């Protein structure tokens, strides 16, 4: 075997979680077309097995990295000609994505609108999208970041329109596709400009090129233009202003489990790529876990802080007027992109840590809220706030769980969301960005208005006449709510283990 081929085969061993996802995808396709009679949701359970198996190998990578001290100098950490990094940062995100994939599957079990004849395709697309999330956070080159992003996007376009007979779902798919195609196109243009300047697609090599040549420092215009264009692509994934327009319609029209997936998976992966790209290409590591922008004329943290404030303000103000729970959650997820951006602009390891910590809590809060939407649709047949009226007295446990998720999203103590937000604000204050912190806190107060509106409808409003009997809650929902809410409550009082994990994982490759 040639040396290259040998290296590729060796790399493949460190790529097993991804390989397992691919193999599961292929297995599902084959089983789907074989004429064997399959029991209901069999392929979905097979998908669970694939995700869990992938998780076992991911855990092994984590243990290996820990034992080798996660040293950036270790030669095994860059795979496939430096295009993929295997570092604690990537492993942490991949763990989150497996959780997101599993929870999406769990939500789909009881989701009635899902076409049973399309189950195979549904699982295949979900697995492909998860694989794309994996590649996005591992990417070390512009090329891999782009390909990962497309591998997330293209299956999600179809998943958003999975209910083919629903007009709203079709509209969601179309809007998502058109916005996605434009965002990708703009991003590719920006990437090609940056490539023309730096002569390389590799994040680290771009930084070296920008640091090395002095005359390059005279082209801040090109850097700004290409940065903004690249941001259009990543910003679309995290749904930050002004690339958020698709979000409410897509979230409303897509099947609810997919909405939950979109609100967490691509958003987290977008933040992973943003952190890698901005910290590794456009910043210099100045030691001690701090970074500074690489070119003085290009103060990208200021651009991002303005976007952060705009995003949370637009998201929160628009959410106040919503009547549909899914649209409300869409604007809430836009607002959260704004909060999370605060962690990017501080340019420090504390910021990365705060984002990692918050995202973990965010997975549970958001899936909890969307589980409630599935529950509401399943048992009451509504997806609006109107449908929650008086439900708190008919089905107390799900409603209390929903209230916990919503209060945690607001950032009230003693819940996990409070701790997460606390660390985000701590990072901002540590950088003496007081105006950003104040605007962030004000926004959290506004968000209480609309989250509390849902809770008020559930507990304080009169039950519609003739619907006063208690609602029998299937065991599935009780169990699922318990699983999702327990971490939120636990992380509100005992968050040290997650802090340790997130701190450890905030070491990006090379820093």
């Amino acid at each position, binding site marked *: 075997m040639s040396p*290259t081929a040998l290296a*590729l085969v060796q790399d493949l061993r460190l790529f097993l979680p991804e390989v397992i996802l*691919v193999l599961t*995808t292929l297995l599902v*396709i084959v089983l789907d077309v074989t004429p064997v009679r399959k029991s209901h949701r069999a392929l979905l359970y097979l998908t669970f097995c694939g995700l869990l198996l992938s998780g076992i190998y991911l855990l092994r990578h984590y243990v290996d990295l820990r034992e080798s001290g996660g040293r950036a100098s270790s030669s095994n950490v860059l*795979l*496939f*000609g430096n*295009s*993929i990094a295997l570092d604690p940062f990537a492993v942490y995100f991949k763990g989150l994505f497996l959780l997101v994939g599993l929870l999406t599957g769990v939500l789909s079990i009881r989701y009635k609108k899902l*076409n*049973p*004849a*399309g189950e195979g*395709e549904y699982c*295949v*697309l979900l697995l*492909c*999208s998860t*694989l794309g999330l994996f*590649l996005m956070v591992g990417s070390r080159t512009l*090329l*891999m970041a782009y*390909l*990962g992003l*497309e*591998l997330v996007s*293209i*299956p999600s*376009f*179809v998943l958003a*329109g*999975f209910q*083919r007979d629903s007009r709203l779902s079709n509209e969601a*798919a179309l809007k998502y596709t058109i916005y996605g195609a434009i965002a990708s196109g703009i991003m590719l243009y920006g990437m090609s*400009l940056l490539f*023309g*300047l*730096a*002569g390389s697609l590799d994040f680290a090599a771009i930084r070296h*090129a920008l640091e090395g*040549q002095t*005359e*390059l420092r*005279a*082209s801040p*215009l*090109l850097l700004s*233009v290409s940065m903004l264009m690249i941001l259009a692509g990543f910003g679309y994934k995290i749904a930050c202003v002004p690339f958020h327009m698709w979000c409410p319609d897509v979230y409303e029209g897509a099947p609810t489990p997919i909405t939950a997936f979109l609100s967490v998976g691509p958003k987290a992966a977008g933040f992973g790529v943003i952190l890698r790209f901005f910290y590794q290409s456009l910043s210099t590591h100045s030691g001690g876990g701090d970074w500074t922008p690489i070119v003085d004329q290009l103060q990208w943290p200021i651009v991002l802080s303005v976007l952060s404030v705009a995003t949370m303000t637009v998201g929160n103000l628009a959410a106040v007027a919503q009547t549909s729970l899914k649209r409300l959650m869409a604007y809430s997820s836009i607002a959260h992109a704004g909060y999370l951006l605060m962690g990017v602009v501080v340019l420090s390891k504390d910021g990365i840590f705060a984002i990692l910590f918050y995202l973990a809590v965010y997975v549970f809060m958001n899936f909890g809220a969307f589980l409630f939407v599935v529950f509401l649709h399943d048992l009451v047949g509504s997806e609006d706030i109107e449908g929650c009226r008086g439900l708190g007295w008919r089905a107390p446990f799900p409603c209390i769980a929903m209230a916990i998720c919503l209060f945690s999203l607001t950032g009230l103590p003693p819940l996990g969301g409070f701790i997460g937000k606390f660390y985000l604000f701590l990072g901002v204050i540590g950088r003496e960005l007081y105006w950003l912190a104040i605007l962030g806190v004000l926004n959290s107060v506004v968000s209480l208005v609309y989250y509390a509106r849902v809770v008020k409808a559930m507990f304080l409003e009169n039950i519609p006449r003739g619907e006063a009997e208690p609602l029998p809650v299937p065991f599935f929902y009780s169990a699922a709510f318990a699983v999702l809410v327990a971490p939120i409550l636990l992380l509100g009082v005992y968050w040290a283990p997650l802090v340790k994990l997130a701190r450890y994982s905030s070491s990006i490759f090379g820093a």
Partner: protein
Amino acid sequence: MTTLTSALYHAAFYADMVLTVGSACVVAFSKNIVRSAFSLLLTFVGVAGLYGFLEADFLVATQLLIYVGGILVLLLFAVMLTHRISNIKASNETSFSALAALAATGIFLVLVEVGTKTHWDVKGGPLGESTRPIGLLLMGDYLLPFEVAAMILLAALIGAAYLARNAIRK
């Protein structure tokens, strides 16, 4: 290069540019979607010519095979098979034209400024034939991106088949 061949070279280049930009304008401004689709053919051919001027032989071939031969034909099929597409009022409607023109001009000026004022990282000298090195890279350093592209195509294929499937059997 003699003066005559140089002049011919330049003439060919500018002819190609006029073809590309002119047909792209028709694509963007025509009210008739069928006409837009057919002008796109000339745009794609013009871009292939541009790759030719850059001595990127592999890109010329892919541009012609994939864009002209594949994507455009698909696009034309889509246009022709869509029921009464030209009757739909909103098919190519222009709105906010003044604002759009302003924004487009602004972006154009910025891009011109960027293109002319930047010290590009130019690798000098003729490239020679590029197909073989590209093939080797795709099987070596760029094997992973190549395979990921395969996964993207697989997902797109399955997704498209699901959406386009006529009636759900079972």
